């Protein structure tokens, strides 16, 4: 991905990237509303699904008269149902996602656009939810990413607080994706439980800048939390960086473990390397996307 300078360019770049993928839908996601995708249950499509014995009240138009003639048994033909799978994408819009000097914001909207484009390829509807002060639907997010409103990333609260305050009207049996840096104190299991409730699948994408994954600063620094405004004067040396790396590893391990516990997938993504090689390797690995 070239270096987009605006979120609009990032959206378009993410959309172009997502066209190479298709959202990998689990079986559990092929339920719900009628749509254009064949579901896992019997429905009203033209595709034969199964036979079953006739029960009073069944539509006589589905009675297989050939089987009745041969075996004198009343058998009803069942057809596959057609469903409309859905992707609910939750985008962390806290200030930390627009960290100064990093590509996190651009990477986040590109990632969201790529997932939306991949969902379109999978004939899957999509909704982008912005987890700011509250969880709100991104205007235009049900349509093409090119018409999305650009998210602001100016919330001062973490996504779990937003989910708790105003839980969104997510589609049941939908695929849910959380894009966040996860750099907020929370109990992963509780957050995941809230996210996975009623979902067919859940993928947590941790988007971090390179300097957040492996800071290479040295010397005394005054660290300022962009969300809380808190400050900490630290002398950062190799030992401090190693301790930071260990803490980050523990955080990822905690989220990964929690994801596995609830059947969700966890995918760490580096903002600056998100589109390296023109592939979203991390999302392929975790099974969220599959190449077209």
């Amino acid at each position: 991905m070239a270096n987009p300078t605006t979120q609009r360019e990032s959206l378009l770049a993410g959309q172009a990237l997502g066209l190479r993928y298709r959202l990998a839908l689990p079986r559990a996601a092929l339920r719900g509303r009628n749509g254009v995708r064949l579901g896992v249950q019997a429905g009203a499509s033209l595709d034969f699904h199964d036979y079953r014995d006739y029960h009073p009240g069944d539509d006589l138009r589905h009675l297989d008269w050939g089987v009745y003639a041969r075996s004198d048994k009343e058998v009803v033909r069942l057809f596959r149902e057609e469903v409309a799978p859905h992707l609910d994408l939750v985008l962390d819009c806290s200030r930390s996602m627009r960290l100064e000097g990093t590509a996190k914001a651009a990477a986040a909207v590109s990632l969201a656009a790529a997932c939306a484009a991949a969902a379109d390829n999978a004939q899957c509807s999509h909704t982008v939810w912005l987890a700011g002060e509250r969880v709100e639907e991104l205007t235009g997010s049900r349509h093409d990413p090119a018409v999305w409103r650009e998210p602001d990333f100016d919330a001062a609260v973490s996504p779990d607080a937003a989910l708790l305050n105003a839980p969104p009207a997510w589609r049941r049996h939908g695929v849910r994706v959380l894009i966040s840096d996860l750099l907020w104190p929370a109990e992963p299991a509780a957050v995941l439980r809230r996210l996975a409730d009623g979902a067919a699948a859940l993928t947590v994408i941790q988007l971090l800048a390179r300097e957040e994954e492996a800071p290479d600063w040295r010397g005394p620094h005054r660290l300022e939390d962009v969300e809380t405004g808190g400050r900490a004067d630290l002398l950062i040396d190799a030992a401090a960086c190693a301790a930071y790396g260990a803490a980050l590893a523990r955080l990822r391990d905690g989220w990964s473990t929690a994801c596995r516990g609830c059947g969700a997938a966890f995918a760490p993504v580096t903002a600056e390397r998100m589109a390296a090689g023109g592939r979203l390797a991390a999302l392929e690995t975790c099974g969220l996307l599959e190449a077209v």
Partner: protein
Amino acid sequence: MVFAFPYALAGVAALAGLVAVYTFRARFRRRPVSSLMLWRQTIRPSRGGLHRDRLRLPPLFYLELAALAALVAAAIGPHVLRPGLGALTVVCDTSVSMTARDASGASAQDRAVRALRADVRRGRYARVRLILAGANGPEPAGTVPPAQAAARLAETACLGPSDTLEASLARACELSEKTDEVLVLTDRPPPAGDTLRPGVRWLSFGSIEANTGITYADRSPREGGTEALLVEVAGFGRPEGTRAPLRITARAPDGERTLFEGVVDLGHGGRGRLTLDLPPGTPALAITLQPDALDTDNRALLLPDTPRPVASAVRIADAALRRTVERALAATGRFRADASEPQIIFTDHPANDSGAPAAPWQVVFTAPAAPRLVRGPYLADRSHPLLEGLSFDGLVWPAGTNALPGRVLLFAGSAPLLSVDAPPRRAPVIHLVTTGAGDALYRTAAWPALIWNLAQACAEAQPGPASRNLRAGVTAPFMAGRGATEAVFETPGGTLTLRTHAGRAIWAPPVPGLYRMMLPGGKSEPFAVNLFAPGESDLRGRMTGRWSGVQDGERLQRTHRSFAWLPGLAALLLAGIHHGVLGRKISDTVAAPDRT
């Protein structure tokens, strides 16, 4: 405000600035982060008290610091002593004011000795040349090893009535080479307006002190063998009306006796006078004042100094002329008749043995040939002492046509009237043209004056000092006798031998004290030399200070060798390393984004 090394000062300021820039730049650079959650886990717990972190600065800082420090060092201009230095010529003021002591009891000479010792220790001179600026002019005191210079100066007696610093300094500069230094040690500042030449340092160690001293004393003979004593005392820095205690003692062979003990009132200008009548036969007088800052001017010694009578003999056949001469001799009181061993003979026929070394003076009365009376004009050699104070206006003189031997002192037109024939190592013969006692010359004032001048000249020509009471530093004649080629003196500093010219030595005794002139036949003539130097007794113009005819930089170049090139080269090297490191760092920074 003037700084010795302005560039170094700027460098030091840059050093401070560099440290400040790096320190403040290194201290808590602001860096926004997504969350402090993970960073808080890196904070090390404090165990057993406060933990102090060492300030970490990049290597570039130390490189820049070292380069700046090297530049500062180069700007300061470090020097090392040259291995071989020139000579130090020390001009020492030996005037008596150098011995004046301040309240602590130290004299300017003491301080000068200490300064010279310290200077020699610092200077690493190859040798030290001493020149004493005595009253009689520059006196080279030899070349000594530097370690002995201060001791030599301490041994030098500073008793001169004046100094000759300017002349001595000129002599020192003549003797010094380009790399040599000249050091003047005195108690007074250099003359106002004078500019010291490069390489000359003028160190003054004087101190302003009030001082009372004897500025003049003399005993004058009077009739009847009595004498009059005059003592003048000056109080420099003393208020008017001060009373100076004074004591006068007579030093007779049988002991001392006090002639006067009292005070002298110092009147206008701080000066006071005391006059005493001395009885006949008063021996040597010692005059003393109470001790004060300068001791030497508190003492004076006056020897009896009655004019020495001249033994004379009158061998003139003309009775009238003889009586006229004898009357004139008696009128002066300077002659005593001694026909056996006369020192001067008045005669009308010259003796043939006048060429002997011990021959007496002769005054030959010569009759003129073909005499004719003349009224002048008279041509007189006024430079000769015999004609001092003589006037011949209106005098009628019987001049002749005969020539006179020797140097003619008086002409009447072209006719010689008076001459002196003084060949080397022989007694002078004075020829006077006269026709007899009836000449008008003997009835004028010129005649007794001429006889007086004869007595004076003959007395002064006798062996011994011209006066028994002399003033230090004042030139006086000393007759060693006809034929003598040298005059020997016993001085306070030892025996001194001077070469004579025409049996006479001209000398200025440099220091006060009792002297003795050795005469032929084992005899000796004592004479006293007193200070009587108001300029030395007056300590109000003394000063402590330092003047230099050379800038410090020039003196530094004279004695030291600069190695500013070394830190300069180091600064250049460090700057090169810094440039290399910085260039590498910049290229790394530029290349870093490509790795993404």
